[in-house]
């Protein structure tokens, strides 16, 4: 008997310590967790996203986003919200077919609808979320940092997207798109999610700070004036075409003009 009391007291203390720790954890968690939406709101958004997904995406990707491997349709269970935001708000998805490369078209969804689908897909697994502005919008970069962005762009991007982001050809009818009109957010999302044949450039390889430099370089290089008509910014092929048409073509016309004129005394 005499031994039970202390035991009981100990039990009571343990329960108290456990409860206090849990309470403290809950307070700490509530302080740190991004609680922009209540749980109920999130659930509601995911439900709305699930409905939109079932209507617009499930015919190819499956009701649970499991994809259709034999048709080349990817599973969406671990792509994250960023992939959905990129694909849908650039108008690439919903794609008209599963054969050809999805190309940017007009996005007919509202921002809320895109966010709902993104939230639903994000709830299916892990993956990069939709970035905040301070993750991709360059500001306060020095000239050296922007120039470094150029080096990063030429090292990692220009092999497919061309030296100033005019785009380029990939095998089997696929193209690397022109980046001159692409928004900084979509550059970030494309790098993190690797749409189509593009590889994923994870934050371990190219941190957000470097993405900002690349975005800043692209903006500046396309904002600067070119030295005359830039002939499409496609390199020597269009230059050669113009040398023949505008150069030789015009000079031959002049030669004809000169030799049709006789000599006047």
């Amino acid at each position, binding site marked *: 008997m005499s031994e039970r009391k202390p035991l009981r007291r100990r039990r009571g203390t343990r329960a108290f310590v456990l409860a206090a720790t849990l309470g403290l954890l809950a307070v700490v968690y509530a302080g740190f967790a991004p609680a922009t939406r209540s749980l109920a709101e999130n659930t509601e958004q995911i439900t709305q996203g699930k409905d939109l997904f079932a209507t617009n995406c499930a015919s190819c990707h499956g009701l649970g986003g499991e994809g259709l491997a034999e048709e080349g349709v990817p599973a969406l269970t671990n792509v994250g919200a960023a992939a959905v935001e990129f694909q849908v708000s650039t108008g690439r998805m919903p794609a008209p077919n599963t054969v050809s490369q999805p190309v940017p078209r007009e996005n007919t969804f509202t921002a809320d609808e895109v966010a709902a689908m993104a939230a639903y897909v994000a709830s299916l697994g892990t993956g990069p979320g939709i970035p905040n502005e301070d993750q991709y919008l360059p500001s306060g970069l020095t000239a050296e940092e922007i120039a470094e962005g150029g080096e990063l762009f030429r090292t990692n991007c220009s092999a497919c997207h061309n030296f100033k982001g005019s785009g380029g050809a990939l095998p089997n009818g696929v193209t690397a798109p022109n980046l001159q009109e692409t928004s900084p957010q979509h550059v970030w999302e494309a790098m993190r999610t690797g749409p189509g044949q593009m590889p994923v450039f994870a934050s371990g390889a190219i941190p957000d700070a470097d993405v900002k430099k690349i975005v800043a370089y692209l903006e500046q290089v396309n904002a600067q004036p070119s030295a005359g008509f830039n002939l499409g910014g496609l390199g020597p092929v269009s230059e050669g075409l113009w040398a023949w048409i505008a150069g030789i073509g015009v000079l031959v016309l002049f030669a004809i003009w000169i030799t049709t004129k006789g*000599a006047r005394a």
Partner: protein
Amino acid sequence: MAKPTKIREDSPALAVQTPPEAPPAVNKLAPAAEWVDQRSGIGKVIKGALRKIFPDHWSFLLGEIALYSFIILLLTGVFLTLWFKPSMGEVEYSGSYELMRNIPMSEAFASTLNISFDVRGGLLMRQIHHWAAMLFVAAMTIHMLRVFFTGAFRKPRELNWIIGVGLLSIGLIEGFAGYSLPDDLLSGTGLRFVDGSIRSIPIIGTWVEFFVFGGEFPGELIIPRLYMVHILLVPGLLLGLISAHMALLVYHKHTQWPGPGRTQKNVVGYPLFPVYAAKAGGFFFIVFGVTTLMGALMQINPVWLYGPYNPSQVTAGSQPDWYMGFVEGAIRIMPNWEWHLGSTTWSWNIFIPFVGLMGLLFTGLALYPFIEAWVTGDKSEHHLLDRPRNAPNRTAFGVACMTCYGMFWAAGGNDIIATQFHVSLNDVTYFMRVAVFVAPVIAFIVTKRICLSLQRRDAETVLHGSPTGVIVRSPDGGYTEAHTPVSQGEAYTLTRHPQWTPVESGGRVRQRLSRWFAHGQIAKPTAEDIEAASHHAHPISPVDAAADETASIGSGKDAE
């Protein structure tokens, strides 16, 4: 057609080969000129040169475009050498182009940026220089095509043709060296391309690579070496060959289109002074003006966008300038044939399209005059040009070669074709693999049919005159177009060309080739044909012609 340019009958500028004795010159410079002449005898030379006759035709000015572009290249090139530093030493950029700030690069690239952004007029000069280089090779090419299709390479001009082929081939080397000098990403990629091509040469490839680059690619020697090639060696060779080319032109005299009064022994046209000096001199300023406008209005080779060369980088749309495009294309569409014998690699996938194709092109060009002379057995001199239609097999062969070149050329831009026309890169490549062989055959057949049709039309014109566009209705309701007879001069021009006759001697191969070359030509009207046709021709009144025809049938005059 190549009608001779009209020269006014009263024009004192008409060629007079033996000018009347000039009255003693009353000129302030006369004593000085006389002093020089008495000591150098130069007066006679100048007098001959000033009265040198050149025939007038637009296609004869194509070579002049090349010559004038070369002069523009020398002028702008000298300007660029004042600031360009041919060094691969590494520096950090500190010039005024912000987007390259502190980027490590070679001195060559840094000085190219300096010329573009910090030297007054530097960017304009760079762009004029580059456009002039494109025009230089392009003008040489169309000049060569003109000479080919008019048969101007025939005896006695075979040597000058070979000099021209030499000019074109080292013009390519000159252009490529210049393209490589700025040491930007594109030029470095081009150098890497050539590096790989050199390595593909069996047995000695690696050794030659190390010799050219002074060790492993890229090393530190290639830019200074190419600089020497670009501003000294090749321009020197070009200057020498151009001088020889023009000396032979003066010696042979210029070819001319056939026509009344134009023979193998004379040249009809304007004298150098004053007419041709004004025309050609004026044309120089036009060429300079057009090139300057291009340099001012059209961006070319924006090196600041490509960035400094870095072997770990490459950009989509990496292509050479247009004149190396056919080699680029051949390598792009070549199947991946490679041997591995023991420890050696035999890269036919690179060697055949690079060394093989260029060798084939320039060897074929150099030998063509001799091959054609062997096939036709033609040993005579030619100062009158062939109209392309009158040498249908040569013309068709030339167009077939152009088509083949064009297919290789287009293949060099297969990625641009794919993106601009929204087709698959693979499809373009597979199409071109077939097209380089099939398209020339189609081009040959089509061109030959066109040539023969034009020959038929010429014969028709000689026999029945030119159509007037006047449609006449006969009393019995038929419609005919009235024809007007051509002048004797025009008839002469249309019938002057010799008919091809196959050789009877030589081996079987030669005889068969010769028969093939002469095959299919339309027999030109004989004097009897023209006589007979003129008997029928009553251009003003087709009714009479119809009556006449009835009469002749009735009398059985034409029955054979």
